[in-house]
């Protein structure tokens, strides 16, 4: 039995935004509305869903890059929400993040060597010659040449920049990495390179991941367990690949059915789901998915289904599984 490295319970984050012209109205966006999940030591845990479902907010709230309104986050037994500034800084050595757009998250005027050295200096991990050696070691580990240290971000391709982003996250030797759509901006051949690198690091360093993605194929290959989110809530959770082979929640089934497969014979099975993703500012009553759900019943319109644990790590929030 492996230990849990991260436990998130009842995470909530509402954003208040002013919208409209010329008379702005205040609306509340329920980005996270009671999200709970657990990441085991050494596991890659996927968070999937469509735009606006709250998956990125969840990743950031875990690091307290966005302060959650409610809920508990425990990292290796430590209550993340209760930490003061210095405690938080110490914690961020253990938890790091890799962003989708590596260009936007690298300082364009700073040499790569400096970008990689700075986190180690901030955390007092190394200095002088040792620091240079560690930078060299990081570059080698992510498959970049040593000269990269003396170059600027614009001199690299997208895939190489993502390697730099990964090296920066690794510089402080974290135990958990939040990877927020790390391969979405990359071409498929480069995407595979980066996925293989992340997988290698998981094995070599015993890293755990929270892997945020909209691509079910990537999640199936990379993750050991997954949670599907819809409008700020987890609708289904379970181990992979079983959960994508036998999805229970109608939304998971729809996502699975709509994900294109590189096989022309599979196209007849492509499932159509009507309607659009509603706004998290104004989610439908009852189960948020009911207006698009082919199995919607009367009670789905009135009542949000309770979370049901089905054993073996599987859980679902749907009235179809009430018995």
């Amino acid at each position, binding site marked *: 039995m492996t230990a849990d490295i991260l436990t998130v319970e009842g995470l909530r984050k509402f954003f208040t935004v002013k919208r409209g012209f010329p008379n702005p109205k205040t609306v509340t966006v329920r980005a996270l509305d009671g999200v709970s999940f657990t990441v085991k030591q050494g596991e890659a845990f996927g968070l999937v869903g469509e735009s606006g479902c709250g998956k990125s907010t969840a990743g950031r709230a875990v690091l307290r890059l966005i302060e959650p309104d409610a809920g508990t986050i425990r990292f290796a037994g430590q209550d993340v929400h209760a930490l003061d500034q210095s405690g938080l800084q110490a914690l961020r050595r253990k938890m790091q993040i890799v962003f989708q757009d590596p260009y936007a998250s690298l300082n364009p005027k700073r040499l790569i060597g400096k970008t990689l050295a700075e986190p180690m200096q901030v955390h007092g991990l190394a200095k002088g010659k040792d620091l240079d050696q560690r930078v060299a070691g990081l570059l080698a580990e992510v498959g970049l040449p040593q000269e990269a240290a003396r170059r600027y971000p614009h001199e690299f391709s997208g895939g190489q920049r993502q390697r730099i982003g990964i090296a920066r996250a690794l510089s402080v030797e974290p135990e958990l990495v939040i990877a927020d759509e790390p391969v979405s901006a990359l071409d498929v051949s480069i995407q595979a390179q980066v996925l293989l690198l992340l997988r290698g690091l998981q094995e070599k360093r015993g890293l755990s991941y929270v892997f945020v993605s909209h691509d079910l*194929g990537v999640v199936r290959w990379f993750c050991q367990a997954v949670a599907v989110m819809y409008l700020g809530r987890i609708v289904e959770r379970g181990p992979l690949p079983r959960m994508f082979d036998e999805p229970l929640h109608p939304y998971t089934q729809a996502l699975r059915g709509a994900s294109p497969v590189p096989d022309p014979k599979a196209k007849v099975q492509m499932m159509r789901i009507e309607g659009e993703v509603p706004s998290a500012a104004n989610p439908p009553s009852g189960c948020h998915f009911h207006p698009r759900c082919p199995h919607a019943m009367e009670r789905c319109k009135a009542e949000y289904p309770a979370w049901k644990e089905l054993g073996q790590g599987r859980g679902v929030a749907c009235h179809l599984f009430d018995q």
Partner: protein
Amino acid sequence: MAEAPVLSVQGLTTEFRIGGQWHAAVRDMDFQLARNETLALVGESGCGKSITALSIMGLIPKAAGRVARGRIEFEGRNLPDLDDLEMRKLRGDRIAMIFQEPMTSLNPVLTIGFQVAEVLRYHRDISASEAREKALAILEEVKIPSARQRLDDYPHQFSGGMRQRVMIAMALACQPQVLLADEPTTALDVTIQAQVLVLLAELKQRFGMSMIFISHNLGVVATIADRVAVMYAGEIVETAPVGELFDRPTHPYTEALMRSIPRVDRTSAELFAIPGQVPPISRMPQGCRYAPRCGLKQAICEQQSPPLEPLQGTATHFARCWVRAGGAA
């Protein structure tokens, strides 16, 4: 092929000027598009798939680019010979194009009803009110819910999927013979992508259009295409009917691409990455452009550029490879 192709591209070479020198972004493209056929151009960023579409549309920016060679035959005319006015009459009427990001292709200060009607008023001799009625009909055709109420809405009031439907409505307003769709679903969520793909397939059938569908996503291509052309570094490296291509990927690049996709429908322990990256157009290798990344390369691959040749026993499956096609092996 009994029927003449709707669109025929021969030897198309489109160049861009970099540092005072002309470099080919698309080189010696040959393809034909049959009536009611969907041809997918698939490849990674920078392979020239969008440049091909822009060349057909006459939209290559003149300051830095040019169609250097080749013929693009459509309805008895060679498109690069046409002047600006003739091209403008053709675009949006006989050939239309939709783009990846609908918000940047729609005018934010004009209502969508106006923008769809504008296409009709430019190309057809009809009154404003007739154009508006026709615009409404086409918006209903692309399944915009309560289209009549939404005619006077602005683009920002629509979601991404609905904006793409508006773009499709504008493109189809004059019932073009050929639709060029450049990554039309890439910016959309998967459930919305599925809806738009189904819509495009239905409309193509109904209007009897031909379509060139540009995508980097082999899953999407498998869903919508009749025939596929895989592009690499400005050239078609393999082309075949969709079933044949996915059953028997022959060019090492096509094969490597397919093995680098993590699939949602099956568990594959291994994922293969293609080492290295696409060469920049100013530094294309001699010989086969894929050779530096290819696991099968032989001496000839680095010396001479392979031709696009039919595979043995087929008339529809072509590959540009010394090792897997052609006589050099």
